[in-house]
């Protein structure tokens, strides 16, 4: 981050300590106040709330880990949590699988064939900017059972048996969710892979070719290992994104997570517990929030550490 090795740009270091405290406060406090009050403090407060039993908005008494126990065991919440968590995991794995194959494939195609590269880059990453909520509504219209273009096209090319209520069928809802999500975000991994491919010295591959390696061989044994850092970055970002997902699922399946909760995820569960919950909503949802927080932040940090160490050694 900032305290890395010294850089030449720090030539003004000789002014150390000469910047007045007033300037320092004036420049950093606005951002610190906003960020502290609205991001950091609420998370700390949620942690604190989680240790109390609540009746409506009244704090009723110290509960210790009672809320955590309640969240994990109370019907139906106790059963919904593992299901939602599992959906998040499937969602993450599915998204990773698509991004790292299709995304890499597109990047390789663009790298080897730079014709219209800018145009394709732009078109492929266009859905990236659209709101997940809008993406969800858009696809729910396209996939709607009787008037949706997708089923219509399937029927008109004779694949009637393929047409189905994609989002209403518990068997297809989650795979469709994964595909829609990948459709939206594929531009990101593609751009990372493209940047990584360009950053690999061409001499390496030429050397491999001189040694008689086929081009496929040269790709898999020379170029691919060097893409590992890119895969690492994509893994961390996809993890954070997939475990934070809310809008897209809400648009595709409502706050209950689609047919029979087939698309229920942790984000929806938190929303329901906090804002559609019972009398102890504050206590329960705060406990749930902390568990999700530890999961996301913890795994993200571990992943990043792990990947950075690998980057150094490889």
């Amino acid at each position, binding site marked *: *981050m*900032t305290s890395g090795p010294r*850089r030449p*740009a720090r*030539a*003004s*270091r000789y002014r150390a300590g000469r910047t007045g405290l007033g*300037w320092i406060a004036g*420049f*950093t406090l*606005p*951002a*610190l106040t*906003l*960020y502290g009050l*609205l*991001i950091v403090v*609420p*998370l700390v*407060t*949620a942690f604190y*709330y989680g240790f109390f039993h609540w009746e409506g*908005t009244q704090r009723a008494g110290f509960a210790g880990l009672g809320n955590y126990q309640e969240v994990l065991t109370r019907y139906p919440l106790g059963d919904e949590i593992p299901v939602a968590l599992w959906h998040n995991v499937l969602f993450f794995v599915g998204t990773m699988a698509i991004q790292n194959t299709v995304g890499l494939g597109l990047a390789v*195609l663009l790298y*080897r*064939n*730079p*014709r*219209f590269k800018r145009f*394709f880059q732009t*078109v492929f990453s*266009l859905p990236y*900017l659209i*709101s*997940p*909520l809008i993406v969800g*509504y*858009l696809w729910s*219209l396209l996939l709607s059972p009787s*008037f949706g*273009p997708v089923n219509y*096209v399937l029927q008109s090319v004779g694949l009637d048996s393929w047409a189905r209520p994609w989002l209403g069928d518990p068997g297809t809802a989650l795979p469709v969710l994964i595909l829609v999500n990948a*459709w939206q975000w*594929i*531009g*990101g991994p593609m*751009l*990372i892979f493209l940047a990584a491919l360009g950053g690999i010295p061409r001499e390496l591959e030429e050397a491999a070719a001189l040694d008689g390696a086929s081009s496929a061989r040269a790709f898999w044994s020379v170029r691919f290992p060097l893409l590992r850092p890119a895969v690492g970055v994509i893994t961390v*970002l996809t993890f954070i994104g997939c475990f*934070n997902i*809310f*809008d897209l699922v*809400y648009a595709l399946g409502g706050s209950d997570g689609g047919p029979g909760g087939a698309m229920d995820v942790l984000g929806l569960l*938190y929303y329901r517990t*906090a804002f559609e919950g019972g009398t102890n909503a504050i206590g329960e949802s*705060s406990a749930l*929030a902390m568990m999700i*927080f530890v999961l*996301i932040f913890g795994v993200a940090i571990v992943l*990043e550490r792990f990947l950075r160490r690998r980057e150094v050694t490889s």
Partner: protein
Amino acid sequence: MTSTLSPAKRRSRPEPARPGPRAAQPGGGLRRAGVQLLLWLYAALAFGPLVLVLIGSFRSNADILRQPVGLPTSLGLENYQRAWETASLGTYFVNSLFVTVASVTLCVTVSAMAAYALSRWRFRGRAVLAALFISGLMIPAKLGLLPVFYMYQSLGLIDSRLGLVLLYAASGIPFSVFVIMGFMRGLPTELEEAARLDGANEGRMFVSIVVPLMRPALAVVTVFQFAPTWNDFFYPLVLMRSDEKYTVPVGLTRFFGEFAADRATLFAGLVIALVPLAIVFALATKHIITGLTAGMSR
């Protein structure tokens, strides 16, 4: 965490004009055509759904229900008019525009100041402060919404556009500080040194020397704050109460409930919600590509 958005590094990026190692080989013509075909196919997949929506917005509802895929029947704007007025998307649109512009301005301003201080001045706690801001990139901030809700309730900021502005500005700070600091790291200090010798104080120097130099980073940050803020759904879903203060995404949920059977109007509504982003995209494609890569390699 390394940013690729430093001027020095950016220059070392692959030039689009550089052909890939295979491109020059003889007999590659057929293969190149195949590659082009694949790329166009995916482009159709990426762009097709958006085109379907755009076409749908120029068809009548009866027509859409009879034949879900088809050409536009009229170039009239009745669908848009219905979405804009009857479904009050116009109101939501204005709200979203206000909230987005105000919060992005606030966020970029405070982030630029903090990032400048953090990358140019030495002071106690500097590293800790930078780490605190940047750790926000991995924090699922939405999980703190319930305490924010009660804080806002006691401050009278529930159902207030100002409340949304502050919250969005705050949640954009980590990314903005991160990107601007990364940019500053690669920016030589000579101009600042010269201004200092000329007797400019810190405030003056920031406004007249540093901000103009920072412009590429500010552009990236602005674009990248604009989209998620315009798109955000979770905060207004919880914090806004009255219909006339809704932003576009929350408005859309109401709209989709009320007009469920009227496909044509729904398509027009989606197009309206997409227009500002399309404009941003058209104006700033270059910054977006840079920013995606910077954001991705954090």
